[in-house]
Structures are given as C-alpha cells and as structure tokens.
C-alpha cells in the first residue's frame, strides 16, 4: 500500500526520535559501561581505567544482590497486584450510573497528580508514624496497640504508598476499556440468567485482558525504578532495598562509582529481560 516515496519519508520522520534516543541511550550507557570496568572511587581520587570484571564479580557475589532482586520482585509484584485488582474494581464501579460521577472520578484520580516525594512524606509522617500518625489514633480508638508500619511491615507500607499513586493510572486505562464494553452482550447474558460472577468471568475479564497487559507493561517500567518512596520512608532499611536502591547506595552513599556502574549495567540487563518477556505478550496483543 505504501509507496516508495512515503516509505523514505517515513524513515526521515522516525529519524529524529530514534537518533535522539540512541544518543540518549548510548552515550550515558557507554560511559556507565566504561566506568563499570574501572576502579572509580571519587572520594579516594582513584581512577584506574581497567580492572576487568572485578566490579561485576563483587556486585553479583555480594549478599545484598540477591535479596535486592527478591525485594524488587516482591515490591513490583505487590503493587501490580493491588493496582490491577483495585483498578478493575474501581473501573467497573466508576462506570455505573451515579450522582456526581465527575467529582468521584476526580477524587479517585487525584493521587496520580501527587509527587512521589510528597506522597511518601505525607504517608510516612501523617499516617504511618507510630506516635503521631493517623493510623495510630485509629488503632488506639479501636483499643489496639499502635502498630509501627514502617519497621514491622516495611515492604507492605511502601507497596501501599506506591499503589495509592498508581491505582488511578490503572483505573483510568481500565475505565476506558470498560466503557468500550458491548452492553448489549452483557444484557443478553443477564437475560439468560447468567450470574454476575460468570458475567464478569466470561465477558468482562476477557474484554479487559488487553488493557490489563498494557497496565502491567507500563507500570512495570515505572515501578522498577521507584526510588523516592524508599529513600524518604526507610532509607533502604528493614529489607526494603531494591536493586535500584542498591545501585544508589553503591554510587552515592559508598561513592564507589565503578561498583555502582556495574550494578547499573546488571540492573539494565535484568530489567530488559523482564521487559522482553512483557513485550512479547504485549507485542502479540498489538498484532491483532
């Protein structure tokens, strides 16, 4: 269908974006790659350009590496779980006829507009804080001992904070999908006496599958790099150190740029493995 002419025009039009992203990706990536083979510790004024794979060996063999990978998976998985379940529920709910629909929608999507630093600060100080937090008052009001969320359930607490921010995003995408649902088909099923559960299971859920995949893909990309929420709340303590945070500790706290760069490269490789896996699914979805 496309002519030779429009094909070359297309190439020219893609060029700027591809070129920029290539530059953006390659220059810092190559420098990181270069540093990852170097003994680069700025605070010691050390720079030795080639020390082989020492940094990689050190990073991979450190006991913190595997636990960081585990924490990352736990955290991303937990957030995805909450946002998808919650998102489907909220999307179905917001699609119903009700009074003040517009206002409710704004209330629900509002958390998405809040900066991660702000939401982490607000949750940490005004909700989770065991002495002055609102949850503690709630516990006391119910006659319970206040619970120290951030030290007793640290990963869960961070999952809650991040899920709160991303639930609106999932809801929005799923809501558009719900709105495109064929209501006649649903009505017919209802006439036939299909119970609500099976209507959901056999009509709604399959229709939403594509949207759910998109939510998983986009969110995973953002969630793999969550940083502010951990930095503000626990500083990586109590087993909340993700791979991104571990790299941060190596680069900035320990000022071992070589080691941190090796960690960064490893993180990129791992993230891309996850991404390729996810994209296969979405890519298939894009085809049909």
């Amino acid at each position, binding site marked *: 269908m496309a002519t030779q002419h429009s094909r070359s025009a297309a190439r020219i039009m893609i060029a700027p974006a591809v070129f920029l992203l290539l530059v953006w990706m390659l220059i810092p990536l190559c420098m990181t790659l270069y540093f990852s083979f170097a003994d680069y510790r700025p*605070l010691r004024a050390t720079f030795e350009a080639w020390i082989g794979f020492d940094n990689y060996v050190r990073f991979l063999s450190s006991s913190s590496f595997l636990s960081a990978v585990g924490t990352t998976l736990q955290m991303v998985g937990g957030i995805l779980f909450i946002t998808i379940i919650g998102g489907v529920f909220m999307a179905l709910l917001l699609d119903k006829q009700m009074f003040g629909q517009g206002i409710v929608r704004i209330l629900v999507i509002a958390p998405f507009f809040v900066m991660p630093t702000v939401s982490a600060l607000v949750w940490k100080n005004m909700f989770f804080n065991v002495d002055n937090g609102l949850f503690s008052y709630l516990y006391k009001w119910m006659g319970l001992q206040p619970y*120290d969320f951030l030290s007793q359930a640290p990963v869960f607490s961070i999952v809650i904070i991040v899920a709160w921010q991303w639930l609106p995003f999932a809801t929005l995408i799923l809501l558009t999908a719900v709105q495109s649902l064929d209501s006649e088909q649903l009505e017919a099923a209802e006439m036939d006496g299909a119970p609500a559960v099976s209507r959901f299971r056999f009509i709604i859920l399959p229709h939403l599958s594509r949207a759910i995949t998109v939510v998983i893909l986009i969110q995973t990309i953002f969630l793999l790099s969550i940083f502010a929420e951990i930095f503000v709340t*626990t500083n990586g*303590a109590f087993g909340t150190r993700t791979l991104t945070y571990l790299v941060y500790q190596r680069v900035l706290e*320990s*000022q*071992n740029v070589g080691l941190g760069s090796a960690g960064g490269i490893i993180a990129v490789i791992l993230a891309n493995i996850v991404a390729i896996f996810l994209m296969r699914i979405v890519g298939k979805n894009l085809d049909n």
Partner: protein
Amino acid sequence: MSINKMLLTSTVGLGLFAGIAAADGHAKTITIATVNNGDMIRMQGYTDQFTEESGIAVEWVTLEENVLRQRVTTDITTNGGSFDILTIGMYETPIWAANEWLLPLDDLSDDYDAADILPAMANGLSYEGTLYAAPFYGESSMVMYRTDLMEEAGLEMPDAPTWDFIAEAAAAMTDRDAEINGICLRGKAGWGEGGAFITAMANSFGARPFDENWTPQLDSEEWANTLNFYKDMMDASGPAGYATNGFNENLSLFQQGKCGMWIDATVAASFVTNPDESTVADSVGFTLAPDNGLGKRSNWLWAWALAIPAGTQQEAEAKQFIEWATSKAYIELVAENEGWANVPPGARTSLYENPEYQEVAFAQKTLDSILSADPTDPTVDPVPYVGVQFAAIPEWAGFWTEVSQEFSAAYAGQQTVEEALEKAQAITEEAMEAAGY
C-alpha cells in the same frame, strides 16, 4: 478541549515571561548549599543584613540533610562548581581537604579571631593542621531529662551517670498508660542517625569498629553487649517505633512530653527549653552522656561548618560571607534579636566565657560534653582513625549506613542481635576489602 488549550497556552506564556524575568540579578552573587536545620534557616533570615553591609547577594539552596549530601558530594566529586559555599560536617571536611577540593581557611582576618574557635572543633575541621571549614555551630551529645519525672520516680540525676543508672531511671519513669517512655534514643538507619548514636555508645562499652590494623571488630563481645543493652533498655522503656526514630522524631516526642530522657545532640537543648515549641520547657535538666566506668563516655562530636569548594569563582566573597556568618558579631546579632538561648552554640570559646551566656541552663553542660569528646582518641582500645561517632575514611558513610540498617532490623525484632552483628561484620569486611585495606 478548549479549556486545555487555554491552560496550555497560558502556562507556556507564563513560562516565557518567567524566563525573561529571571535574567536580571546582582553583580555579585554567591550560592550557598545548606541543610534545613533551624539555625541555618535563622541565618537565612539575616542574610539581608549581610547583603546590605557587603553588597554581595546570596542565593540559598536549602535541602534536607540526606538530599544535601547527595547533591553536594556529586558536585564536589565532579568538580561541578555549582556552589561557592558548602555546608558540610566534621566527617566530610578532612576527606575532601585531602583531595584538595576545599580552599584552606588559613588567612581569615584578625578581626575574625580564628584562635577563638573551640580547639575540639578546629581540630575536627582541619586537615594536616590547616582549617578547611569554619564551624557555624558545634555539638556533642548529652542527656536531656525531665526533672519533674525524675522527682516523681524518687531519683536524682548524677552529674556523670552510668548506663546502669540510665536504664534503671528509664524503667522507673516509664508509664505506658500516660504515654511516657522512660527513654528516647535514635534507632533509625543511617550512619548519621542511629548509626552515629550506637557508635558513640559502643565507645563507652569498650567496643570499636576496627582494631589498629583496620580489622573489623563487630563480632566482638563488646559490640554484642552494646547492642543487647540498647535493645533491652529500649524494649523495656523506649517508644513503640524506636527503630525508625531519628533526631526529629525524638525531638517532637520529647517536646510533647512523651520522653523521660533523651540522649542526643546538645543543640536540641535550645529547642526543648523553648516554651513556644516545647510543652515541657520549664522542667528539663541536662547532664553528661553516660559511661560504663571504662574511661570513655558515650557522647559524640560534630560540627556543621561552612567551606569553600576549590572550583569557586568567588573566593573573596565566599570568605567574606563565612567570616560574617561564623563571627562573634553574628552570635551577638542573634542574641540581641532572639535571646542568648538561640545563638548557634558550640563553635567559639568566647561564647562560653560570656557571663550572659553562662546563665543559659544548658551552656555549661554543652561545653563539658564537647570538651569530653576526643576525636583523636575516641575508644577504650586504640583505633587507627580520627572521629568519635564515625571514622573519617571515605567508605564509612556507605558501609556504616548498611551496618546501621542491620542494627535497626534487630531493634525492630526482624532478626536477633547476633544475626545483625554477624551481617554487620560481613558488610564491614566486604567494604574494607573493596577499599583495599
């Protein structure tokens, strides 16, 4: 859609306008990176006076401590040249000076009277005998306690308490129903938070992070004693979430009357005795940090100081500002406007010789605390480093933060003290090996 469009065009318009508006400015402007502590914020309030006197405008970059460290360290290690003055501490100063990243402050004017800086502070902020950062305020740590609660418990605070007495007093003062915790201490992870406290405490228990040959010593009995004592005492008499409490959390607890005792930075004394902020202002007593009879007390030494990065284009102006901000005159300026209790403490000898300042309740104890901390001889057994609650080596901030994370996890009951120390030893060994010791 039309609303969106309107919104967008107007925001873009505003943005362009702002771009133009930002173009003007003073001929001479210095940029200062600082931490958002009360004394620094107060100093910002007085900068107009400095600008008036000198004609030099000042731009402030005020950041929370951890963010400030990231920003400033990245800048200095890449020679970024974004700042003309940096607010740094005793830990950074000798390390950065050794790399020639800071300009020496050896030619300050006679008026400034550099000899008046407390020797403990001057030593900690010098490298090879040359001053590289001027202390804005200095601190040690001491016990702040509620005189009314002590009396109720039928106890009397000695001038130099032992840890056993502190634990006993803490238990006696604790009243869970009235939400009074006998003792509040830092447990929050971070080398400058709980990590600093436990290291200083370990000093008084005869523990040390390394021996003379830099061999990590966290598997020693002394460390186990330190941590067990801390945890037992805090579990019995501390606040519920002590594993996540740092300076700020404890300060607000104490100000709300929820702590019987609090061992922390001497600068906190002026906050807890300030009736505007503290509900217990008129019943606070002060005493030296506890010991174990081994010859070392558990107090630390720290200073927030102003330094000039080597890459600055405005050395003279920066020096002028530092001389102004850390001068005797500045102290008097604050005293005049806000009272003697609120002047930046712990930097100058003359302040403690001032009869007016001696009347401030915590002045003498602060000085005694500062004088009893010796960065060159911090531990019972000898160590190869300088620093009381830290070792002034570049790797410390990194691995000690990780170590303190293991400690915090033990405080929170996620692992035993033994497990935490085992991991801490491994972390330290790994870090020291990587550093080439």
